Every structure is written in structure tokens, then in C-alpha cells.
């Protein structure tokens, strides 16, 4: 396999090293029949997914709810146990690290959540909250910790005075800035951003996206950007992976994926977003993806999308298509041209 790839056409000179390699990863949740708590099979939330994140890039991960995108994000930083497969981070296989072994790796991979309010202690001042982990992990001495907190607040565009205030005194956008500051306190390499802007107002979303882009440049960060809002994904991602029922069905450079989607699911998903232009509404009314996502506990045979696919044929019901290994990867027997 090609270990280094230049993924930015605009800067062909830069070669990128893989930061995280996900190989044939699966995450299963046991299903229990309610009354007797017996195991009644399992939900394959993430099923045999391979993906490499290169240093400095942003991979957008999109799909409907329940497709496994959040589970994938949580599994690769070991917040959920992997059922099978391998996770390599900076070359080390961390799949089976003990909690103690994980500590140094964990500092270098952090997560940003959708609702920062839920993850901020309401009784703690922001400054103390940011200082605590720095002191616990001896990343700053008591003497310097104040300066380090101010630096973090400055990074995310908050005044130093914010450190003396409590979470409820901040707006949603500011809380997300605090969540980002906290994730940055360990000087991580990888940030898993799980729907970081979807709870925010439109005008604030743009501010946070811009901030994430600036921080990436400044701190050489790598992002896995999980979102259902396709506009944000398009703006921030270098590559985009589309998930459906636990599988990656398409993976390509952002421009390419949006211009020429090859999987019928990607095409219909992109088509579902109403364009912000009333003049286009007639055009769009023609193709709508019908039906609901099938239950991941009992996914359809063959290609998992065949039950909703307008182009499905006999072969799709029987044989599961594999994700191709080229630059524009697609898992479909009859990809669109």
C-alpha cells in the first residue's frame, strides 16, 4: 500500500504521513431481549471499516443517524471497545492498550462534542476547568498554569477574563469555543469533532468552522469531522467518507465527491439537501430517497442499500460490494458514471 499520499492538489509538494490507520474495524453492541437479558445477537454499528487519516487533513464523515459515524469516531479514540480490527495511531497499534498504556496516546487524540454545555461542569469556573487537567498531568506548574489557560482562551478567541466565569454565562458558540480550548490543552495531533456545529445558529456555525480551520493551520491538526450538515463538511474537509449502515460506501476528495458522486446513496443524500434558492425547488422535487434506514440489527443482504436504491438489480440483493481501493473509492456493483 502506498504509505504517503499528497492529497492537496493545490500543494502538490507536501507529502503526508499517515497519522491514524483504521484496518477492518468493527464495533458491535450486544442486543438483549428485554425481559431475561439474554444476548439476542448484536448490532454491528461499525462493520469492517478501513480508513487512513493523513497528517494535516480533514476527513468529513457523513451519513444519516444510526449509520455508525459517531461510533466510528468514538471507537478510533478508544471510547468504545473495538470488536475486531486494528487501530494504529502514530504507528502504534493501540487497539488493545490497557487504560494506563493509553494515557499518552489519549492526550494526543481528543474529541469535541455537539453539546459543549453537557460536557462542562456547571459549578466550575472556566479557568479552573481548563487548569485542572494541566495540573493533574503535570503539563504546567502551579506558577505557569494561569498563563497557559490564558493562552488556550486566546487560541479560541475568548478574552482572558472568560476564565473567571461559569459555563451558564456563555452563549452556545462561546461554549463550543471552550470545548475546543479544553480539547487543545493537551496539544493533540488528532481531533475527532462529533457534530461540532449542528447545535449552533447558522451565523455562529460559520464562526466556529472558521476557527477550526485557523487552528488546523496554526497547530498542524488532523480532524475527523463527523456531521450531518453537508455544507459544513464541504467547507472544512479535504476528503469525505459516506457511511451507510455501518459501512463506508464512498470515499473521495471533497470536490470530486460533490461534483461526481458515484454511489447512488451519495447522490440521493446530496440531493436531499434543499438548495438555498427558491428558483431551484422544482428541479429538486423529482428525486427523493424513499423509506427509512433499515435496522442495523438486521441489515439487508447483499448491498445494504439495495432496499432503497433506485438502480438495484438481482446481483445487489445477493452479493455484497466491496469498497474499491482507488483514490475515489466506492462500494457499488454498478457505480454511477
Amino acid at each position, binding site marked *: 500500500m502506498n504509505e504517503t499520499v499528497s492529497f492537496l492538489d493545490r500543494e502538490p509538494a507536501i507529502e503526508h504521513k499517515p497519522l491514524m490507520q483504521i484496518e477492518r474495524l468493527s464495533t458491535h453492541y450486544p442486543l438483549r431481549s428485554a425481559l431475561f437479558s439474554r444476548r439476542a445477537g448484536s448490532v454491528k454499528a461499525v462493520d469492517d471499516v478501513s480508513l487512513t487519516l493523513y497528517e494535516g487533513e480533514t476527513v468529513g464523515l457523513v451519513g444519516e443517524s444510526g449509520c455508525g459515524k459517531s461510533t466510528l469516531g468514538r471507537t478510533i479514540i478508544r471510547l468504545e471497545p473495538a470488536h475486531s480490527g486494528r487501530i494504529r495511531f502514530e504507528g502504534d497499534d493501540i487497539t488493545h492498550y490497557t487504560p494506563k498504556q493509553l494515557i499518552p496516546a489519549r492526550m494526543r487524540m481528543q474529541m469535541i462534542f455537539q453539546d459543549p454545555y453537557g460536557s462542562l461542569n456547571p459549578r466550575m469556573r472556566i479557568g479552573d476547568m481548563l487548569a485542572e487537567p494541566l495540573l493533574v498531568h503535570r503539563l504546567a506548574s502551579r506558577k505557569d498554569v494561569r498563563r497557559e489557560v490564558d493562552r488556550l482562551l486566546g487560541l479560541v478567541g475568548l478574552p482572558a477574563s472568560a476564565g473567571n466565569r461559569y459555563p451558564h454565562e456563555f452563549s452556545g458558540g*462561546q461554549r463550543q469555543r471552550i470545548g475546543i480550548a479544553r480539547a487543545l490543552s493537551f496539544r493533540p495531533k488528532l481531533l475527532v469533532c462529533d457534530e461540532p456545529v449542528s447545535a449552533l445558529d447558522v451565523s455562529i456555525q460559520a*464562526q466556529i468552522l472558521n476557527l477550526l480551520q485557523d487552528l488546523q493551520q496554526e497547530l498542524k491538526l488532523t480532524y475527523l469531522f463527523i456531521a450531518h450538515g453537508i455544507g459544513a463538511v*464541504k467547507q472544512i474537509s479535504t476528503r469525505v467518507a459516506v457511511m451507510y449502515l455501518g459501512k463506508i460506501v464512498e470515499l473521495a476528495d471533497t*470536490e470530486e465527491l460533490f461534483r461526481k458522486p458515484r454511489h447512488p446513496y451519495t447522490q440521493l443524500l446530496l440531493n*436531499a439537501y434543499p*438548495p438555498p434558492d427558491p428558483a431551484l425547488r422544482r428541479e429538486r422535487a423529482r428525486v427523493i430517497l424513499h423509506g427509512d434506514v433499515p435496522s442495523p440489527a438486521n441489515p439487508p443482504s447483499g448491498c445494504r442499500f439495495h432496499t432503497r436504491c433506485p438502480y438495484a438489480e438481482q446481483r445487489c440483493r445477493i452479493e455484497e460490494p466491496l469498497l474499491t481501493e482507488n483514490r475515489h473509492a466506492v462500494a457499488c456493483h454498478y457505480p454511477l458514471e
Partner: protein
Amino acid sequence: MGELLKVERLQIAFRGDQGETISVEDVSFAIQPGETMAIVGESGCGKSVTSLAIMGLLGASGSIKRGYISFLDTNLTAASEQQLRKMRGSQVSMIFQEPMTSLNPVMPIGRQIEEALRLHLKSSRKEARQSAIDMLRKVGIPRPETIAKAYPHMLSGGMRQRVMIAIALICQPKLLIADEPTTALDVTIQAQIIELMQTLQAENGTAILLVTHDLGVVAAMADHVAVMYAGQIVEAADVYTLFRSPRHPYTQGLMNSIPRLDAISGGRAPAIPGQVPSLHEMPTGCRFHPRCPYAEASCRELQPELMETGDRHRVRCWLTETSEADQIAVHRDTRQKVAL
């Protein structure tokens, strides 16, 4: 054709720990029978409060301080609770963002639909049951006879929203208020629900008041749009005019900050700086001036009125009076070109 709903200079206040706060100020609009009117704005702009006021659902702490709401020539602001009860569910009904919290978790779905019929139209149990099943079929629920006996937790989010729509439309109301009807749904399901609402609207001639923050949904559904900011309407126009030539700097900012699928990736979104003011610390003058790139001295001191600029296009901005509005439009065009 007369107006179905008319809201005139509405002011709504809430009592709280910090005294009274005005959350909606000087809001006027009208809805014609069968049309879709959208109120769009960010959280806290007063869009949901306005729609709750129409239903008479402001609760104990909220009250209409000034202005009036008339529906089919009845003044709702002076109506008794009994009159409102009769109207809700039969003439005007409402669907909310999260269908799970507005459905009764311990009652089969069919019975929840029948309830409205039995109450408002005094249908017999048998008639009501049949109409409920027909309605479920109409909103695209497969196997309606079986699903009518199911409980809300057994359905997906999209199915629940279809059930909510069935309940809301079973008495064929003249007006449907839809408060963020698709926000909690996946985008593929959102497209299905928009299509469903439009089909049913065309069949029954129901007018829709759509309350949302999503300009994509507005572009897909609305005939007329009112943009709200900090409790006031800042711009109102027909949907084509609003999207083609927005004149208020806030509307322009909102339009520019939608990440567009046709833009090049890796670019930056033109964000509106700052944040929505709190109701307790409303800026003087124009409420948008602290975030407005074109604000002048007069904007800081004097509050602009919502002014008619021709053809049902209303704008609350001092700059629209002068030729500078055109300069703004030019400015925006060049910005878009740069972005492309």
C-alpha cells in the same frame, strides 16, 4: 380574497426574575388562505413565541401587551379560553420539532388521531377509526391498520412526524403552524416530510405558517418570508425577492453564511461577527447595529421602522432609505464573485 390570519403590531412580554422582558416587538404580518408564510431567524429571535401567541399558548408568564391577532375576522387576543379551545385542533393546528415529546407515549397512535375527530367533529368511534386509518395512509404510513395500534416509541422519527401531521390535519384546519417541523429529522427524511406537507397543502388548501432557522427549508416551501432578529421583523418579502435581493444587512449575512454546495471547499464562510443580543441588554437604535458592517452614527441612536420599499417588500434599516442600499447590494455581489 381576505386575509386568513392578520398579526398587527404585536408586542409580547414575559414576567421573570429580572422583571418584565419584551421578547417580541412590533411584529406585523398576514397570511392569505392556502399560502405558506415562513418566519425565519436564529434562536431567541421571537419566532416561536409569535407562533405560540397565535395559538394562545403563551402560558401564565407570557402576555400580549399590545397589538392584535385576528383569524377569520375573529380577534384572538380578546377570545376566551373556551373559544380558543374550539379553534385549536380544528381551525388551526400545530406541529413541533420533536414529535416524541408531543405524542402521548401510552396511547396507541390511532386513538390519538381519533381524539381530535371525536372532540371537534363529534364523530362516532367507528367513523373516527376509519378516518384515522385513511389519514395514516395519506401521510404515507405503510400498513396503516397495524400501525394505528402501535405506540409512538415503536416508530422512527420520520414516522412519528408523519403521525403528528396526521393528527394536525385530520380536522382539515385552515392554518397549520409548523414550528421547525424537520429540524430533528435526517435530511433524507426531511425531504420526504417537506414533500408530504406540500402535497397535503395542495389537496386541502391549508395555509402554513412555517417557523424555522433553516433557509434551505424556507427556499423549498415558502411563498412569503419574514426574517426576525432580536424580537423584530427586520425584512419581509416574497421568497423569490428575498433570496434574489435581500436588502437588510442581517438577511444578507444569513444568506452568505449558509455553506453553499457550489462553493469551493477549503474556503471560509463569511460569518456574522458577534452574537445575538440578550433580551435584557437590547442595544439602542437598530438592534443589529453592533454586528452590522455598514452601521453609522444614526443606526446607534435611532430605531428604524419596518419600511415598505415597494411590492410587499418591507425592510427595517436606515440604509435602505438612501442610495446606500444599492451600494450594499453591489458590495455583496463583488463579495460573492470573490468567493467564487
